[in-house]
């Protein structure tokens, strides 16, 4: 049977992290399942967890009055959900709806922050890795904002 440590060791975001650090962050983690349709969190909720997707699909949405819930991005294994847990005021900026029943590893955010404060090298490693995730998502969002498939960007 796979331990939590095994599960998180294969996630790209934790790739190359030492066994000691994997064990440390595994102490903050637990396995979860979420049914399709369930919300992992809503905009404005306390960002007290971080999720690693093991299976299934989660959609990030923003609610726009008069337009309903607009899909921003879908995430799948082995991607991570959320960085709001890293920065005050620790509030989610989006809704996260489970589209396809999801297997998740959820991490207690306060626990992770506490271990990072106690060991700055671990904190630096986590910050570096989540900064890379943020940059990738930011670049993807910028490309999305360009509306490249609109008339001005017509290809052929």
């Amino acid at each position, binding site marked *: 049977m796979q331990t939590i440590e095994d599960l998180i060791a294969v996630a790209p975001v934790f790739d190359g992290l030492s066994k000691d650090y994997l064990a440390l962050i595994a102490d903050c983690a637990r396995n979860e399942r979420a049914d399709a349709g369930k919300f992992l969190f809503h905009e404005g909720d306390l960002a007290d967890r971080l999720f690693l997707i093991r299976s299934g699909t989660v*959609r990030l*949405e923003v609610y726009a009055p008069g*337009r*309903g*819930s*607009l*899909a*921003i*991005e*879908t995430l*799948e294994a082995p991607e991570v959900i959320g960085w709001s847990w890293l920065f005050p005021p620790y509030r989610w900026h989006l809704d996260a709806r489970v*589209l396809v029943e999801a297997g998740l590893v959820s991490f207690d955010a306060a626990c992770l922050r506490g271990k990072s404060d106690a060991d700055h090298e671990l904190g630096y490693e986590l910050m570096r890795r989540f900064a890379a995730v943020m940059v990738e998502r930011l*670049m*993807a969002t910028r*490309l*999305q904002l*360009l*509306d*490249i*498939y*609109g*008339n001005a*960007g*017509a*290809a*052929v």
Partner: protein
Amino acid sequence: MLARPSEQPPFTSAYGPMAPERFEVIAKRQETADTWTLDLRPRDRVDFPFAPGQFTMISAGGAGEVPISISGPADDPAVLVQTVRAVGLATEAICAATVGQVLAVRGPFGGSWPTEVARGADLVIVAGGIGLAPLRPAVLDALAHRDEYRRVVLLYGGRSPDQLLYPEELARWAERGCEVLITVDSAGPEWLGHVGVVTRLLRRAAIHPQRSFVLMCGPEVMMRFVLETASAQGISADRVYASLERNMQCGIGHCGHCQLGPTLVCRDGPVYRWDELGPWLEIREL
């Protein structure tokens, strides 16, 4: 001059490449709000052989001539299939053509998708928006020779669900052994598929870098990002082919309007291996 990535059928018009031929609209399908697919039959010859990736110069009445990639199967040369998006006078006139109307067509021009280089390997096709139309013949060719490839993967990004081309066909391609991953830039709650840019699909498809060849077509900025992502995954630029759009007018390399660095896109392209052309695409003035 850069080498063409693949051989294409010889030009077969009896009147020379600058003389348009008559093609009759025999069927017409609306793909999206502004995009139509026309089936055309040549009036003056029995068929119109072409290779996947080639294009024609096409016009309706006196509205002007435009380059349009061929989107039908190469193994059915009796019918010329063109998917056209109405974005200006010439394309609006083509899209407004009715069954029985005669359009003027020149071609086929340019080189083709090098589907043969990927035989025995994984073929990864990345399309954005209407860029799926020029890639459709390559998909159909790959599916017609499905056992000659390992994986055949289509990664298709669109603006929104209602602007995806060939939605019913995408499902059929999946049934025939093509891994089809679709994403849209924006969608309402009714859409249960992927949302996000097509480069994210490239990561999710778990492409084997040394075993894959990538064919791509879409907005140039999208292709740049796809290449960046492919490169980060270890896919070298000499395994990536792209179809480019430029201001093509004569179609035979005489007028020079489509010049890009040392190459004329209508004659030497529109399909290029990225390592041959990439440096020129980085020059903003070109």
